[in-house]
């Protein structure tokens, strides 16, 4: 019995220590990666290397996605261990809500706009 209670106590005491906050090496890796991941999309847009705008947009969003992950790992130090997993659980929950809010708003409003009766301004441009 006393052993059981002790084990329960132990597992509950994982939050004495402060959250993890990287080493000099991990900060420098994160910084190096984010400089590269920022510079490339800026260069892509400013020089206009990719002529197809859709391809360029998707490439830039890909770089942003990777850079956000780099920042979350190397600067915000989100991992599976801190706060016994609650940090990453709340993070994943937020990402899900974020995805629903963004994609839902864009989807619904896009359809609302395209199903709307044409305004006089649009009518005038019609053939």
């Amino acid at each position, binding site marked *: 019995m006393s052993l059981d209670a002790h084990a*329960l106590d132990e597992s509950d005491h994982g939050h004495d220590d*402060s959250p993890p906050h*990287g080493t000099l090496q991990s900060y420098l890796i994160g910084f190096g990666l984010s400089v590269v991941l920022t510079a490339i999309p800026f260069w892509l847009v400013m020089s206009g290397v990719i002529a197809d705008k859709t391809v360029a947009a998707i490439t830039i969003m890909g770089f942003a996605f990777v850079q956000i992950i780099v*920042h979350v790992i190397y*600067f915000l130090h989100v991992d599976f261990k801190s706060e016994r997993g609650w940090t990453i659980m709340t993070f994943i929950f937020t990402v899900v809500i974020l995805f629903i809010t963004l994609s839902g708003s864009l989807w619904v409003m896009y359809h609302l706009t395209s199903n709307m009766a044409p305004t006089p301004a649009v009518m005038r441009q019609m053939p």
Partner: protein
Amino acid sequence: MTVLTDTATPGAQAPVFYVADEHEHPEGASTYLGFWIYVMSDCLIFACLFATFGVLGGNYAAGPAPKDVFELPIVAVNTAMLLLSSITYGFAMLAMDRDKTGATLGWLAVTALFGAAFVGIELHEFAGLIHEGATPERSAFLSSFFTLVGTHGLHVTSGLVWMVVLMVQVATKGLVQANKRRLLCLSMFWHFLDVVWIGVFTFVYLLGMLR
């Protein structure tokens, strides 16, 4: 029947499923998770503002489009300021780990300077836009632009105020446990603002120029 009731009486202990007495928590142990949940809820505010910009960002009302008003070199400099402030805040945290008060304060001061430069450049950009007539009330695009980017700028400004307050605290009280905890919370906040800025420069500025 009697045998069964016998086993459940005094001698045998009932299994324990939970601890009845709350064990002692060290002071501030739950602060990090609580502050992290605040940061995540702040993230949802930005999600709503990004969604608003995504819906309204193309409605120029015959006014200026992103191409007419945005200047990417300024945005690139601004991004560099925020990125540099992130790494210098990291250096401040590393100095704090080694209990070096002077180095921590020094790196915090550098971080605050980069942050102030960011806010200054952004205000300069806003002033330029308003001078050109691209005011928030000009079109839905500009309203949502000023709301999104302005909210981020306000967050950075309040982060700066917080940073100055903590620098005074550390200078007078030293790197005590409570101050370390506050600095770690501000670290989360500061790096989170950098993550939001990645979204801003990608979806507002870079994709705006492609439109």
